[in-house]
């Protein structure tokens, strides 16, 4: 039987039996993967939330500032609003590039080890939740 074949309860692949997952979780590679992941997504989440609420609060409590005309009928509020679009698009590009280059290869390496079958990213079967 191939190492990736599910056991009767459909949960055990390769080294990842019920204790296997804990072993993987405690491994240096996985800890490193988790640190990198959280190190990327948490600061960026904090950034866009602060940036968004700064905008919301300015719009609610400082309308005079937001109404300042910059050129023609284009005021600070409109530019600030459009900047929210720019940062959203920007963070999306940054994240996708980071995940493709930095995250995926590391996650794949661990996954191949967990499954015991390199090149097969998705074992058949598995637990029915």
């Amino acid at each position, binding site marked *: 039987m191939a190492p990736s074949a599910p056991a009767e309860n459909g949960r055990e692949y390769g080294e990842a039996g019920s204790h296997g997952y804990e072993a993987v979780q405690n491994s240096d590679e996985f800890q490193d993967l988790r640190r990198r992941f959280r190190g990327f997504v948490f600061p*960026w989440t904090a950034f866009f939330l602060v940036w968004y609420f700064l905008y*919301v609060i300015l719009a609610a409590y400082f309308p005079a500032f937001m*109404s300042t005309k910059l050129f*023609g*009928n284009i005021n600070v509020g409109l530019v600030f*609003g459009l900047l929210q679009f720019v940062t959203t698009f920007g963070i999306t590009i940054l994240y996708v590039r980071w995940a493709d280059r930095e995250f995926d290869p590391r996650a794949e390496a*661990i996954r191949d080890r*967990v499954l015991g079958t390199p090149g097969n990213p998705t074992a058949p079967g598995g637990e029915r939740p």
Partner: protein
Amino acid sequence: MSSVVHTAQSVGNPALNIGIFALFVAVTLGIVIKVASGKKTAAEYYTGGAAFSGRQNGIAIAGDYLSAASFLGIAGAIALQGYDGFLYSIGFLVAWLVALLLVAELMRNTGRFTMADVLSFRLRQRPVRIAAATSALAVSFFYLLAQMAGAGGLVSLLLGLDGRVAQYIVIAVVGVVMIGYVMIGGMKGTTWVQMIKAVLLIAATFIITVWTLGKFGFDFSTLLQAAVDRSPEGSKMLDPGLRYGKNGTTKLDFISLGLALVLGTAGLPHVLIRFYTVPTSKQARKSVEWAIWLIGGFYLLTLVVGYGAAALVGPERIKAAPGAANSAAPLLAYELGGSPLLGIISGIAFATILAVVAGLTITTSATFAHDIYNQVIRRGEATPGEEVRVARMAALVGGVVAIVGGILAYGQNIAFLVALAFAVAASANLPTILYSLFWKRFNTRGALWSIYGGLGSTLILILFSPVVSGKPADPKTGLSTSMITNPAIDFHWFPLDNPGIVSIPLAFFLGWLGSVTSKEYNAAKYAEMEVRSLTGAGAHNQALEH
């Protein structure tokens, strides 16, 4: 009723509007029947066999998310309230970063069919599934009401039917067609309908935008000036505060709304279920990336459409039209391209409602059949065939609820109903999703307290808010603008329309409190969930199963 009022009630050519809508229905039904041939497994019914590409799913997500509230509601809000309408679209867009960074990929790797798959993964199955299914059904129900209310409002404008009965018949027709899509096509058929609708909607909005800008020499500033000149609000149209800047309460209400919008999207069950239609987390990432580009681009277009409607149609005519603010975009189309363009936009607006309602219905049917019927009632013993049969029945019941709800919700404000759905999603769903994905110590008690606390507090605060009772009477009609229009009935004590600023932090707090007061902790399941969520090990991939 005078003849002047009568001509204002329907614009364009109703036969043409109906014809274009019928054409859309015929074409999409044909496609649904074609893609859905053959017997269906549970995986195919719920997720289309997880065989869609990231790009296809991203387009379908845009089709699911750009609802009547987005298209008609935001354009109308900008046309009437200027800048404050724009604020909605920013919250709706930024919210996708929560989905992209924190939720989409991890959900894809951990779950299989529904939101509850992930929430109950390392907790006690039955109680958590019941709780998650309850809040999922609640969110979908409010969202559904919003869409059906929108359908009713559109009918009177676009089809020239101002009799109540005729409108109810149209709502029923929309409901029946939608049930057909879901029961015949399952998730695969629904996804195709959403993709087609997204492309049509974005293309049509793009044409209206370019056309509108062309009328002002492609100078956005000139367009804004025209909107200012036409609006009774004058230059306030360009500044924040027209709607929310009146006093301290409305400002706080706005912050509360902003919180619910940005945290709600990643807790919407019909959005979450879409992540299961792709085979891998990488494709889930790609889905959200595509969705962000399409949705963001679309909201930029609505800025032009909204101010364009204010400039070219004028707020008086929009307010006088049936459906009021919601008719801004169709009226602009009529102003630009006459009956043919109005017909196209009307057809697309109906298609929009149809596609979103189909997405909601398949979500509720999956939640009911997979979580409640199989996992709770049958304790996981139901065969996939039985599950699909129950899911189809649930879709039928869901469709009937949508029709009845749409008739009852007729006349309610669409944007408000959607905001309510977002508030429940942000309070009842998102805290538990984030805790279970990121917090080791989280457990069953925390999940139950957070879900029921978030859901209960949101509903109670809404019930005792000015939305339901106690808004001052309109001097013209003598009726309150609350849901209960009799101004003598007033039992509100919560000052805000939007409960998020209280209910969201409360749900996070309850999730924490419940967890730290309970000793339950399953190290093995936590390890399995974390490893799977980050690496995709053991992720379900139905596309490779057969």
